Protein backbone atom coordinates (compact mmCIF):
# COMPACT_ATOMS: atom_id res chain seq x y z
CA UNK A 1 0.00 0.00 0.00
CA UNK A 2 1.27 3.44 -0.79
CA UNK A 3 2.23 5.78 1.96
CA UNK A 4 -0.35 8.48 1.26
CA UNK A 5 1.24 11.09 3.51
CA UNK A 6 4.59 10.57 1.82
CA UNK A 7 2.97 10.94 -1.59
CA UNK A 8 1.25 14.15 -0.53
CA UNK A 9 4.29 15.76 1.05
CA UNK A 10 6.42 14.60 -1.86
CA UNK A 11 4.20 16.19 -4.46
CA UNK A 12 3.52 19.41 -2.60
CA UNK A 13 7.00 20.21 -1.35
CA UNK A 14 9.80 17.86 -2.33
CA UNK A 15 8.98 17.26 -5.98
CA UNK A 16 6.95 20.39 -6.47
CA UNK A 17 5.58 20.26 -9.99
CA UNK A 18 6.58 23.78 -10.87
CA UNK A 19 9.81 24.33 -9.02
CA UNK A 20 11.27 20.85 -9.27
CA UNK A 21 9.78 19.09 -12.27
CA UNK A 22 9.33 22.18 -14.45
CA UNK A 23 5.76 21.33 -15.32
CA UNK A 24 3.00 23.89 -15.77
CA UNK A 25 5.39 26.79 -16.27
CA UNK A 26 3.25 28.62 -18.82
CA UNK A 27 0.36 29.25 -16.42
CA UNK A 28 2.89 29.71 -13.62
CA UNK A 29 4.25 32.78 -15.34
CA UNK A 30 1.09 33.70 -17.20
CA UNK A 31 -1.48 33.74 -14.40
CA UNK A 32 0.71 34.83 -11.50
CA UNK A 33 0.37 38.58 -11.88
CA UNK A 34 -2.49 38.85 -9.40
CA UNK A 35 -3.16 36.80 -6.30
CA UNK A 36 -6.88 36.54 -7.00
CA UNK A 37 -6.42 35.05 -10.45
CA UNK A 38 -3.61 32.84 -9.15
CA UNK A 39 -5.99 31.39 -6.60
CA UNK A 40 -8.70 30.87 -9.22
CA UNK A 41 -6.29 29.08 -11.51
CA UNK A 42 -4.98 27.04 -8.60
CA UNK A 43 -8.44 25.80 -7.60
CA UNK A 44 -9.21 24.88 -11.19
CA UNK A 45 -5.91 23.00 -11.52
CA UNK A 46 -6.43 21.10 -8.26
CA UNK A 47 -9.86 20.03 -9.47
CA UNK A 48 -8.73 18.95 -12.91
CA UNK A 49 -5.59 17.19 -11.65
CA UNK A 50 -7.52 15.19 -9.08
CA UNK A 51 -10.17 14.16 -11.60
CA UNK A 52 -7.62 13.42 -14.31
CA UNK A 53 -5.72 11.12 -11.95
CA UNK A 54 -8.94 9.40 -10.94
CA UNK A 55 -10.07 8.86 -14.53
CA UNK A 56 -6.82 7.88 -16.20
CA UNK A 57 -6.01 5.20 -13.65
CA UNK A 58 -8.95 2.90 -14.57
CA UNK A 59 -8.48 3.73 -18.24
CA UNK A 60 -4.90 2.51 -18.05
CA UNK A 61 -5.54 -0.47 -15.79
CA UNK A 62 -8.69 -1.81 -17.40
CA UNK A 63 -8.42 -0.67 -21.01
CA UNK A 64 -4.78 -0.39 -21.98
CA UNK A 65 -3.01 -3.00 -19.84
CA UNK A 66 -5.24 -6.02 -20.61
CA UNK A 67 -4.90 -5.49 -24.37
CA UNK A 68 -1.18 -4.74 -24.17
CA UNK A 69 -1.45 -1.37 -25.82
CA UNK A 70 0.33 0.67 -23.16
CA UNK A 71 2.09 2.60 -25.90
CA UNK A 72 -1.21 4.37 -26.52
CA UNK A 73 -1.20 5.90 -23.07
CA UNK A 74 -0.29 9.39 -24.21
CA UNK A 75 -3.04 9.54 -26.82
CA UNK A 76 -5.76 8.14 -24.61
CA UNK A 77 -4.82 10.18 -21.56
CA UNK A 78 -4.72 13.47 -23.36
CA UNK A 79 -7.97 12.67 -25.16
CA UNK A 80 -9.64 11.83 -21.87
CA UNK A 81 -8.32 14.97 -20.22
CA UNK A 82 -9.25 17.26 -23.09
CA UNK A 83 -12.75 15.88 -23.39
CA UNK A 84 -13.24 15.93 -19.64
CA UNK A 85 -12.16 19.55 -19.30
CA UNK A 86 -14.42 20.57 -22.14
CA UNK A 87 -17.38 18.73 -20.62
CA UNK A 88 -16.81 20.32 -17.23
CA UNK A 89 -16.59 23.70 -18.86
CA UNK A 90 -19.91 23.19 -20.61
CA UNK A 91 -21.65 21.95 -17.47
CA UNK A 92 -20.38 24.77 -15.30
CA UNK A 93 -21.27 27.31 -17.91
CA UNK A 94 -24.84 26.11 -17.98
CA UNK A 95 -25.50 25.47 -14.32
CA UNK A 96 -23.12 27.69 -12.39
CA UNK A 97 -22.66 30.91 -14.33
CA UNK A 98 -21.04 32.70 -11.41
CA UNK A 99 -18.56 29.86 -10.91
CA UNK A 100 -17.94 29.85 -14.64
CA UNK A 101 -17.11 33.51 -14.52
CA UNK A 102 -14.54 33.04 -11.78
CA UNK A 103 -13.04 29.65 -12.65
CA UNK A 104 -14.30 28.77 -16.10
CA UNK A 105 -12.00 31.13 -17.89
CA UNK A 106 -9.04 29.15 -16.60
CA UNK A 107 -10.37 25.79 -17.73
CA UNK A 108 -9.39 26.04 -21.42
CA UNK A 109 -5.89 26.97 -20.31
CA UNK A 110 -5.67 23.71 -18.41
CA UNK A 111 -6.12 21.32 -21.32
CA UNK A 112 -2.66 22.13 -22.53
CA UNK A 113 -1.17 22.50 -19.07
CA UNK A 114 1.63 19.98 -19.03
CA UNK A 115 1.28 19.56 -15.27
CA UNK A 116 -2.04 17.73 -15.73
CA UNK A 117 -0.76 15.19 -18.23
CA UNK A 118 2.46 15.16 -16.24
CA UNK A 119 0.77 14.06 -13.04
CA UNK A 120 -1.01 11.18 -14.77
CA UNK A 121 2.28 10.00 -16.28
CA UNK A 122 4.06 10.31 -12.94
CA UNK A 123 1.30 8.22 -11.37
CA UNK A 124 2.06 5.50 -13.89
CA UNK A 125 5.79 5.72 -13.42
CA UNK A 126 5.42 5.44 -9.65
CA UNK A 127 2.85 2.64 -10.01
CA UNK A 128 0.49 4.23 -7.55
CA UNK A 129 -2.82 2.55 -6.74
CA UNK A 130 -6.07 4.31 -7.54
CA UNK A 131 -6.17 6.05 -4.16
CA UNK A 132 -2.48 6.88 -4.37
CA UNK A 133 -3.01 8.41 -7.79
CA UNK A 134 -5.90 10.55 -6.61
CA UNK A 135 -3.93 11.74 -3.61
CA UNK A 136 -0.96 12.44 -5.83
CA UNK A 137 -3.12 14.37 -8.29
CA UNK A 138 -4.69 16.40 -5.53
CA UNK A 139 -1.44 17.23 -3.78
CA UNK A 140 0.37 17.99 -7.02
CA UNK A 141 -2.40 20.51 -7.65
CA UNK A 142 -1.97 21.95 -4.17
CA UNK A 143 1.78 22.20 -4.73
CA UNK A 144 1.15 24.01 -8.00
CA UNK A 145 -1.26 26.38 -6.28
CA UNK A 146 1.21 27.05 -3.48
CA UNK A 147 3.97 27.96 -5.90
CA UNK A 148 1.56 30.08 -7.93
CA UNK A 149 0.32 31.96 -4.86
CA UNK A 150 3.84 32.65 -3.59
CA UNK A 151 4.84 33.84 -7.03
CA UNK A 152 1.82 36.11 -7.34
CA UNK A 153 2.54 37.64 -3.93
CA UNK A 154 6.10 38.37 -5.00
CA UNK A 155 5.03 39.79 -8.34
CA UNK A 156 2.40 42.03 -6.78
CA UNK A 157 5.09 43.45 -4.54
CA UNK A 158 7.42 43.88 -7.49
CA UNK A 159 4.84 46.13 -9.14
CA UNK A 160 5.94 48.80 -6.68
CA UNK A 161 9.67 48.13 -6.88
CA UNK A 162 12.03 50.07 -9.12
CA UNK A 163 13.15 47.04 -11.06
CA UNK A 164 15.90 47.91 -13.56
CA UNK A 165 14.53 48.41 -17.03
CA UNK A 166 16.09 45.32 -18.60
CA UNK A 167 14.74 43.11 -15.84
CA UNK A 168 11.17 44.38 -15.96
CA UNK A 169 8.47 41.84 -16.69
CA UNK A 170 9.50 38.28 -17.33
CA UNK A 171 13.23 38.36 -16.45
CA UNK A 172 12.55 39.42 -12.86
CA UNK A 173 9.76 36.85 -12.69
CA UNK A 174 12.26 34.19 -13.73
CA UNK A 175 14.75 35.40 -11.15
CA UNK A 176 12.06 35.29 -8.49
CA UNK A 177 11.29 31.75 -9.59
CA UNK A 178 14.99 30.89 -9.34
CA UNK A 179 15.23 32.22 -5.81
CA UNK A 180 11.96 30.50 -4.89
CA UNK A 181 13.38 27.25 -6.24
CA UNK A 182 16.51 27.83 -4.16
CA UNK A 183 14.34 28.23 -1.08
CA UNK A 184 12.33 25.13 -1.97
CA UNK A 185 15.55 23.12 -1.94
CA UNK A 186 14.89 23.12 1.80
CA UNK A 187 12.59 20.17 1.27
CA UNK A 188 15.16 18.07 -0.56
CA UNK A 189 15.39 14.64 0.95
CA UNK A 190 12.53 14.89 3.41
CA UNK A 191 11.68 11.41 4.59
CA UNK A 192 8.54 10.31 6.34
Amino acid at each position, binding site marked *: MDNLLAIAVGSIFVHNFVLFRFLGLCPFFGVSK*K*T*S*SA*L*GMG*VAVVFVMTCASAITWPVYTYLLLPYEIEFMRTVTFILVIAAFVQLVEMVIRKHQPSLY*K*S*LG*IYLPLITTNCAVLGVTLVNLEQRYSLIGSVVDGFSAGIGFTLAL*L*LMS*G*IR*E*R*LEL*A*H*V*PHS*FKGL*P*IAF*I*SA*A*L*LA*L*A*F*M*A*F*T*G*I*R*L
Partner: protein
Amino acid sequence: MPELIVSPSPHIRSDISIERIMYSVIIALIPTTACGVYFFGVPVLTTIMVCILSAVMTEYVALRLMGQQFVMDGSAVITGLLLALCLPPRLPWWMAALGAVFAIAFAKCAFGGLGQNIFNPALIGRTFLIASWPVAMTTWIRPLSYDAVTTATPLGLWKMQQIGTPYINLALGNVGGCIGETSAIAILIGGLFLIAKRYIDWRTPLAYIGTVGLLMLLLGEDPIFHILAGGLLLGAFFMATDYVTTPVTREGRIIFSIGAGIIVVVIRLIGGYPEGVAFSILLMNAFTPLIDRHVQPRVYGIKRKKIFTPTADKE
Protein backbone atom coordinates in the same frame (compact mmCIF):
# COMPACT_ATOMS: atom_id res chain seq x y z
CA MET B 1 20.54 75.21 -8.03
CA PRO B 2 17.70 75.86 -5.58
CA GLU B 3 18.60 75.40 -1.96
CA LEU B 4 15.17 74.36 -0.76
CA ILE B 5 14.31 70.67 -0.66
CA VAL B 6 10.68 69.68 -0.39
CA SER B 7 9.30 66.20 0.17
CA PRO B 8 5.74 65.03 0.69
CA SER B 9 4.44 64.16 4.14
CA PRO B 10 4.71 62.31 6.49
CA HIS B 11 7.77 64.16 7.72
CA ILE B 12 9.55 62.18 10.40
CA ARG B 13 11.97 63.91 12.66
CA SER B 14 14.29 61.41 14.19
CA ASP B 15 17.99 60.86 14.29
CA ILE B 16 17.51 57.22 13.29
CA SER B 17 18.65 56.90 9.73
CA ILE B 18 19.36 53.93 7.52
CA GLU B 19 23.10 54.46 7.93
CA ARG B 20 22.82 54.62 11.68
CA ILE B 21 20.86 51.38 11.94
CA MET B 22 23.16 49.64 9.51
CA TYR B 23 26.29 50.62 11.41
CA SER B 24 24.67 49.59 14.70
CA VAL B 25 24.05 46.17 13.21
CA ILE B 26 27.69 46.00 12.18
CA ILE B 27 28.72 46.91 15.72
CA ALA B 28 26.36 44.23 17.05
CA LEU B 29 28.09 41.70 14.82
CA ILE B 30 31.56 42.50 16.13
CA PRO B 31 31.54 40.04 19.10
CA THR B 32 30.43 37.25 16.78
CA THR B 33 33.06 38.10 14.21
CA ALA B 34 35.73 38.28 16.88
CA CYS B 35 34.74 34.84 18.18
CA GLY B 36 34.91 33.48 14.66
CA VAL B 37 38.42 34.85 14.20
CA TYR B 38 39.50 33.55 17.60
CA PHE B 39 38.19 30.02 17.08
CA PHE B 40 38.94 29.49 13.40
CA GLY B 41 42.09 31.52 12.97
CA VAL B 42 43.14 34.60 11.10
CA PRO B 43 42.37 33.15 7.63
CA VAL B 44 38.65 33.76 8.24
CA LEU B 45 39.44 37.47 8.11
CA THR B 46 40.22 36.95 4.43
CA THR B 47 36.82 35.36 3.87
CA ILE B 48 35.11 38.23 5.67
CA MET B 49 37.03 40.92 3.79
CA VAL B 50 36.49 39.20 0.45
CA CYS B 51 32.76 38.95 1.06
CA ILE B 52 32.37 42.56 2.16
CA LEU B 53 34.53 43.91 -0.65
CA SER B 54 32.81 41.92 -3.38
CA ALA B 55 29.39 42.85 -2.01
CA VAL B 56 30.18 46.56 -2.01
CA MET B 57 31.87 46.44 -5.41
CA THR B 58 28.95 44.56 -6.94
CA GLU B 59 26.50 47.06 -5.54
CA TYR B 60 28.60 49.91 -6.89
CA VAL B 61 28.78 48.44 -10.38
CA ALA B 62 25.11 47.43 -10.43
CA LEU B 63 23.91 50.84 -9.32
CA ARG B 64 26.10 52.53 -11.92
CA LEU B 65 24.66 50.26 -14.60
CA MET B 66 21.16 51.11 -13.42
CA GLY B 67 21.99 54.78 -13.56
CA GLN B 68 21.45 55.30 -9.85
CA GLN B 69 23.70 57.06 -7.44
CA PHE B 70 25.80 54.86 -5.22
CA VAL B 71 25.24 55.56 -1.56
CA MET B 72 27.46 53.98 1.05
CA ASP B 73 24.60 53.14 3.38
CA GLY B 74 26.26 50.10 4.87
CA SER B 75 23.62 47.66 3.68
CA ALA B 76 26.01 45.95 1.28
CA VAL B 77 28.60 45.73 4.04
CA ILE B 78 26.07 43.96 6.25
CA THR B 79 25.08 41.57 3.48
CA GLY B 80 28.75 40.73 2.89
CA LEU B 81 29.48 40.35 6.59
CA LEU B 82 26.40 38.22 7.30
CA LEU B 83 27.18 36.03 4.31
CA ALA B 84 30.75 35.54 5.53
CA LEU B 85 29.50 34.68 9.01
CA CYS B 86 27.40 31.83 7.66
CA LEU B 87 30.14 30.28 5.52
CA PRO B 88 32.51 27.48 6.54
CA PRO B 89 35.85 28.85 7.81
CA ARG B 90 38.07 27.51 5.05
CA LEU B 91 35.86 28.08 2.01
CA PRO B 92 38.00 29.00 -1.03
CA TRP B 93 37.98 32.79 -1.27
CA TRP B 94 36.69 32.85 -4.84
CA MET B 95 33.61 30.88 -3.84
CA ALA B 96 32.91 33.36 -1.07
CA ALA B 97 33.33 36.20 -3.55
CA LEU B 98 30.97 34.58 -6.05
CA GLY B 99 28.41 34.08 -3.31
CA ALA B 100 28.53 37.75 -2.39
CA VAL B 101 28.32 38.84 -6.04
CA PHE B 102 25.35 36.58 -6.62
CA ALA B 103 23.64 37.77 -3.45
CA ILE B 104 23.91 41.43 -4.30
CA ALA B 105 23.37 41.18 -8.06
CA PHE B 106 20.45 38.76 -8.25
CA ALA B 107 18.80 38.95 -4.85
CA LYS B 108 19.08 42.70 -4.32
CA CYS B 109 19.91 44.87 -7.31
CA ALA B 110 17.83 42.98 -9.87
CA PHE B 111 14.82 43.73 -7.69
CA GLY B 112 15.64 47.41 -7.60
CA GLY B 113 18.12 47.75 -4.77
CA LEU B 114 17.79 48.64 -1.12
CA GLY B 115 14.34 48.09 0.30
CA GLN B 116 12.91 46.31 -2.72
CA ASN B 117 14.28 42.80 -2.42
CA ILE B 118 12.01 39.87 -1.56
CA PHE B 119 14.63 37.48 -0.22
CA ASN B 120 17.40 38.05 2.27
CA PRO B 121 20.48 38.53 0.04
CA ALA B 122 23.01 37.02 2.46
CA LEU B 123 20.97 33.84 2.80
CA ILE B 124 20.43 33.64 -0.95
CA GLY B 125 24.21 33.87 -1.30
CA ARG B 126 24.69 31.03 1.17
CA THR B 127 22.03 28.83 -0.41
CA PHE B 128 23.47 29.50 -3.84
CA LEU B 129 26.86 28.34 -2.60
CA ILE B 130 25.35 25.22 -0.98
CA ALA B 131 23.62 24.34 -4.22
CA SER B 132 26.75 24.99 -6.26
CA TRP B 133 29.54 23.52 -4.18
CA PRO B 134 27.91 21.19 -1.67
CA VAL B 135 31.17 19.54 -0.69
CA ALA B 136 33.13 22.70 0.00
CA MET B 137 30.17 24.16 1.84
CA THR B 138 29.99 21.23 4.25
CA THR B 139 33.68 20.96 5.09
CA TRP B 140 34.17 22.23 8.62
CA ILE B 141 37.31 22.61 10.66
CA ARG B 142 37.90 21.97 14.33
CA PRO B 143 38.05 25.19 16.36
CA LEU B 144 41.43 26.33 17.69
CA SER B 145 43.21 23.83 15.44
CA TYR B 146 45.34 25.92 13.19
CA ASP B 147 46.26 23.03 10.97
CA ALA B 148 42.62 22.91 9.89
CA VAL B 149 41.59 19.43 10.98
CA THR B 150 38.17 18.68 9.57
CA THR B 151 35.30 17.88 11.87
CA ALA B 152 31.51 17.90 11.85
CA THR B 153 29.07 20.45 13.21
CA PRO B 154 27.16 19.64 16.41
CA LEU B 155 23.98 19.25 14.35
CA GLY B 156 25.81 17.01 11.90
CA LEU B 157 27.07 14.84 14.74
CA TRP B 158 23.58 14.69 16.24
CA LYS B 159 21.87 13.85 12.97
CA MET B 160 24.34 11.40 11.46
CA GLN B 161 25.83 9.72 14.50
CA GLN B 162 23.49 10.63 17.37
CA ILE B 163 26.35 12.26 19.28
CA GLY B 164 25.54 15.18 21.56
CA THR B 165 27.71 18.20 22.34
CA PRO B 166 28.15 19.79 25.81
CA TYR B 167 26.17 23.00 26.29
CA ILE B 168 29.22 24.89 27.47
CA ASN B 169 31.00 24.34 24.16
CA LEU B 170 27.91 25.42 22.25
CA ALA B 171 27.57 28.55 24.33
CA LEU B 172 31.21 29.56 23.96
CA GLY B 173 31.50 28.52 20.35
CA ASN B 174 34.19 25.88 20.76
CA VAL B 175 32.63 23.64 18.10
CA GLY B 176 32.77 23.14 14.36
CA GLY B 177 30.49 25.24 12.19
CA CYS B 178 30.14 28.42 10.20
CA ILE B 179 32.38 31.34 11.07
CA GLY B 180 29.79 33.31 12.95
CA GLU B 181 27.26 30.82 14.16
CA THR B 182 29.14 28.83 16.76
CA SER B 183 29.29 31.16 19.76
CA ALA B 184 25.83 31.54 21.27
CA ILE B 185 26.97 34.08 23.85
CA ALA B 186 28.58 36.43 21.32
CA ILE B 187 25.43 36.40 19.18
CA LEU B 188 23.23 37.03 22.22
CA ILE B 189 25.34 40.05 23.22
CA GLY B 190 24.95 41.58 19.76
CA GLY B 191 21.27 40.71 19.56
CA LEU B 192 20.45 42.16 22.97
CA PHE B 193 22.33 45.32 22.01
CA LEU B 194 20.07 45.76 18.98
CA ILE B 195 16.96 45.02 21.05
CA ALA B 196 18.06 47.53 23.70
CA LYS B 197 18.55 50.12 20.99
CA ARG B 198 15.09 49.17 19.70
CA TYR B 199 16.40 48.59 16.22
CA ILE B 200 14.89 45.13 16.12
CA ASP B 201 11.62 43.80 17.48
CA TRP B 202 12.23 41.40 20.39
CA ARG B 203 9.15 39.40 19.46
CA THR B 204 10.69 38.01 16.29
CA PRO B 205 13.68 36.17 17.84
CA LEU B 206 11.57 35.15 20.82
CA ALA B 207 8.79 33.64 18.70
CA TYR B 208 11.30 31.99 16.37
CA ILE B 209 13.52 30.46 19.04
CA GLY B 210 10.51 29.69 21.22
CA THR B 211 8.79 27.75 18.44
CA VAL B 212 11.87 25.66 17.79
CA GLY B 213 12.42 24.99 21.50
CA LEU B 214 8.81 24.12 22.22
CA LEU B 215 8.39 21.83 19.23
CA MET B 216 11.65 20.04 19.95
CA LEU B 217 10.54 19.57 23.56
CA LEU B 218 7.18 18.18 22.45
CA LEU B 219 8.83 15.85 19.96
CA GLY B 220 11.17 14.48 22.59
CA GLU B 221 14.38 16.16 21.44
CA ASP B 222 16.70 18.29 23.55
CA PRO B 223 15.38 21.87 23.14
CA ILE B 224 18.41 23.64 24.60
CA PHE B 225 20.77 21.77 22.29
CA HIS B 226 18.67 22.71 19.28
CA ILE B 227 18.49 26.35 20.28
CA LEU B 228 22.22 26.67 20.85
CA ALA B 229 23.46 24.52 17.96
CA GLY B 230 23.61 25.62 14.37
CA GLY B 231 22.66 29.00 13.00
CA LEU B 232 19.36 29.44 14.82
CA LEU B 233 20.48 32.31 17.07
CA LEU B 234 22.34 34.13 14.30
CA GLY B 235 19.31 33.75 12.01
CA ALA B 236 16.80 34.74 14.68
CA PHE B 237 18.57 37.94 15.74
CA PHE B 238 20.13 39.13 12.52
CA MET B 239 18.26 37.66 9.56
CA ALA B 240 14.66 37.08 10.59
CA THR B 241 14.62 40.69 11.80
CA ASP B 242 15.60 42.20 8.47
CA TYR B 243 13.30 45.16 7.81
CA VAL B 244 12.91 44.63 4.12
CA THR B 245 12.21 40.94 3.75
CA THR B 246 9.94 40.33 6.72
CA PRO B 247 6.33 41.38 7.32
CA VAL B 248 5.50 44.93 8.27
CA THR B 249 3.02 44.36 11.07
CA ARG B 250 3.63 42.90 14.50
CA GLU B 251 1.21 40.01 13.96
CA GLY B 252 2.79 39.39 10.59
CA ARG B 253 6.24 39.12 12.12
CA ILE B 254 5.03 36.64 14.70
CA ILE B 255 3.43 34.49 12.01
CA PHE B 256 6.70 34.74 10.09
CA SER B 257 8.77 33.61 13.07
CA ILE B 258 6.50 30.73 14.02
CA GLY B 259 6.44 29.51 10.41
CA ALA B 260 10.22 29.70 10.21
CA GLY B 261 10.50 27.82 13.51
CA ILE B 262 8.29 25.01 12.25
CA ILE B 263 10.31 24.70 9.05
CA VAL B 264 13.57 24.50 11.02
CA VAL B 265 12.18 21.66 13.11
CA VAL B 266 10.87 19.82 10.05
CA ILE B 267 14.20 20.09 8.22
CA ARG B 268 16.30 19.12 11.23
CA LEU B 269 14.16 16.11 12.10
CA ILE B 270 13.11 14.64 8.76
CA GLY B 271 14.85 16.72 6.11
CA GLY B 272 17.87 15.96 4.00
CA TYR B 273 20.03 18.66 5.59
CA PRO B 274 21.21 18.77 9.20
CA GLU B 275 20.50 22.49 9.40
CA GLY B 276 17.52 24.46 8.13
CA VAL B 277 17.71 28.00 9.45
CA ALA B 278 18.75 29.60 6.17
CA PHE B 279 16.08 27.75 4.23
CA SER B 280 13.40 28.47 6.80
CA ILE B 281 13.97 32.22 6.62
CA LEU B 282 14.10 32.19 2.82
CA LEU B 283 10.86 30.23 2.59
CA MET B 284 9.13 32.61 4.95
CA ASN B 285 10.55 35.52 2.92
CA ALA B 286 8.62 34.07 0.02
CA PHE B 287 5.49 34.01 2.15
CA THR B 288 6.01 37.58 3.36
CA PRO B 289 4.02 39.34 0.61
CA LEU B 290 1.08 37.02 1.28
CA ILE B 291 1.34 37.51 5.05
CA ASP B 292 1.46 41.27 4.59
CA ARG B 293 -1.66 41.04 2.50
CA HIS B 294 -3.55 39.04 5.08
CA VAL B 295 -2.50 40.84 8.21
CA GLN B 296 -3.21 44.37 7.15
CA PRO B 297 -4.15 46.68 9.99
CA ARG B 298 -7.86 47.37 9.85
CA VAL B 299 -8.67 50.83 8.63
CA TYR B 300 -11.02 52.42 11.12
CA GLY B 301 -14.61 52.47 9.93
CA ILE B 302 -14.04 50.23 6.94
CA LYS B 303 -15.29 46.68 6.89
CA ARG B 304 -12.54 44.18 6.36
CA LYS B 305 -12.72 43.07 2.79
CA LYS B 306 -12.41 39.49 1.77
CA ILE B 307 -8.95 39.32 0.36
CA PHE B 308 -9.12 36.16 -1.66
CA THR B 309 -12.05 36.16 -3.97
CA PRO B 310 -11.36 34.17 -7.06
CA THR B 311 -12.59 36.51 -9.71
CA ALA B 312 -11.94 37.25 -13.27
CA ASP B 313 -9.57 40.15 -13.81
CA LYS B 314 -11.06 43.52 -13.07
CA GLU B 315 -14.36 42.43 -11.61
